[in-house]
């Protein structure tokens, strides 16, 4: 590995491993936090908890704790090498935002009672999650790049790709959720998004996020088949655990949701076919394919976003989520396919340009 202090190879070697471990711990921490946050949304819909001490919160704050430890490890190991590289700074900044959101959230609750999905403290929390997971992802790529020979392409191990991309994907999805779900009205404030803005932002934001994350996974694996599919499968499983399984009324739709792996594997096959790699069209096609699955991939919560636009006043109760969702799938989905395909292509292109050219290093 080439670090800035060539005379301290043993130190650099050990420190490099600590650097990577820090990145992994930050990512795993954000994965727990984002997964816990997703479960918390579902828990609020089902059970309307009125106490801070709920299982989703335990997972969420465990994740924050892991991310803090990871950030300390990452920052200190980077400093020992003589220079705090920017991924470490980014991860540390994200974790600082995460941790500072906690007491701010407490003060907000004390002043205004339980807050909705979108509130200033929650926005800070999710922004911190996005920033720290980005920093961790960049850190893993940076760590790998230190060991590359001239001209050798950057290629991460599939396990590292999943650990890096999945929390970023969940955190970005959480950011889009904040501005699309109608869960932010409280006694004191109404931060619910305008329904028209919400449906447009969902049709643009979700496809972009899906395509950028999945195609980014493929590029980080050197466009080899597998990493993208595994990352997609991990997202499907995480969403099932946090949004579908807790609601008994939705258990029958597990096979429907599991089908979402098919377009992801298809896109992975398109991107990994080596004779198509010199061309841009496979990138656009893969991005468009995964982009248009957003309406199915973000089931069941996306029903709330589009229901608010088509039938304001109708509540998407847990027991009627299925008929309302499939009604929207038949009426609304055909209209959002074109913008979703376009934004999916844009997301794939963005990931391809950034990751393939090591623009973040």
């Amino acid at each position, binding site marked *: 590995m080439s670090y800035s202090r060539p005379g301290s190879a043993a130190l650099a070697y050990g420190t490099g491993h600590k650097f990577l471990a820090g990145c992994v711990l930050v990512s795993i921490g954000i994965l727990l936090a984002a997964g816990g946050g997703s479960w918390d949304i579902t828990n609020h819909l089902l059970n309307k908890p009125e106490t801070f001490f709920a299982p989703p919160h335990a997972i969420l704050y465990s994740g924050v704790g892991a991310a803090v430890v990871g950030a300390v490890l990452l920052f200190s190991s980077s400093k020992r090498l003589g220079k705090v590289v920017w991924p470490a700074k980014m991860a540390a900044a994200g974790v600082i935002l995460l941790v500072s959101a906690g007491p701010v959230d407490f003060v907000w609750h004390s002043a205004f009672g339980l807050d909705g999905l979108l509130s200033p403290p929650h926005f800070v929390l999710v922004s911190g999650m996005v920033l720290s997971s980005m920093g961790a992802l960049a850190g893993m790529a940076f760590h790998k790049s230190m060991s590359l020979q001239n001209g050798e392409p950057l290629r991460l191990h599939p396990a590292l790709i999943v650990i890096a991309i999945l929390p970023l994907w969940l955190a970005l999805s959480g950011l889009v959720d904040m501005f699309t779900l109608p869960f932010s009205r409280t006694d004191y404030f109404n931060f619910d998004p305008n329904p028209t803005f919400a449906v447009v932002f969902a049709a643009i934001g979700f496809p972009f996020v899906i395509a950028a994350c999945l195609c980014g996974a493929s590029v980080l694996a050197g466009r080899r088949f597998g990493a993208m599919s595994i990352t997609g499968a991990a997202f499907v499983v995480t969403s099932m655990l946090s949004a579908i399984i807790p609601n008994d009324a939705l258990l*029958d739709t597990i096979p429907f949701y599991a089908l979402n792996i*098919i*377009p992801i594997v298809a896109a992975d096959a398109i991107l990994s076919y080596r004779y198509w790699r010199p061309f841009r069209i496979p990138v656009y096609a893969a991005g468009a394919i995964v982009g248009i699955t957003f309406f199915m991939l973000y089931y069941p919560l996306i029903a709330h976003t589009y229901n608010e636009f088509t039938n304001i006043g109708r509540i998407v109760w847990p*027991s009627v989520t299925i008929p309302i969702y*499939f009604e929207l*799938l038949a009426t609304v*989905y055909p209209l959002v396919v074109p913008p979703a395909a376009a934004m999916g292509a844009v997301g794939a292109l963005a990931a391809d340009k950034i990751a393939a050219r090591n623009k973040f290093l």
Partner: protein
Amino acid sequence: MLRAIILAGAVGAALAIYFIFSLYVFPQSFQASVKPSRPEALITAVNLSRSDLALGEKLVVSVTGTNRGDRADMQIVSVGFPNFTSPDSIRILQHDFRQRPFTINATDPVGSGYAGTEETVNATYASIEAFSRPWETGSTYTIELEVTPEAEGNFIMVVKAVALPHTWDGAHYPREGTMDYQSEFVDQYSVKVTKP
């Protein structure tokens, strides 16, 4: 070239299967098999500590509700006080509902006609809304209130229960009789308030 064609064909076939199942097979199957839940809301007991009292004295009201049908996403036991415009003279002594009861003041917007928030009206009197979310089959919850009537005469209370989503007539109680300002049936109780 052949490999490319085979790959394109396989991808196309996979996507076709995906969209056929996602947009047709599963939706048709769910429409046929998913039946709306039918919670059955009931008020099983209403106890008043007094049948008459002097002005300034307190009355304890206990209301018990149950669900004899399918699980309700939310079921409400509503105790209304047509003599009050605000809940200032009402105190919740105890309850075992899953969530904290909330209060309604006169002029607050409330749902009507068992349609939830799809149709709203302005409240004309104060009420206490105790609810559990969800309300499981066979579960019973009780709320106990202390009320201080503010004037002499007939002091009236109206009681009802509503399960949401409201999928059939059994999701509300009572099923007939007096209607309140929300166009929903209520049972009416009264005590005589005399001079101190």
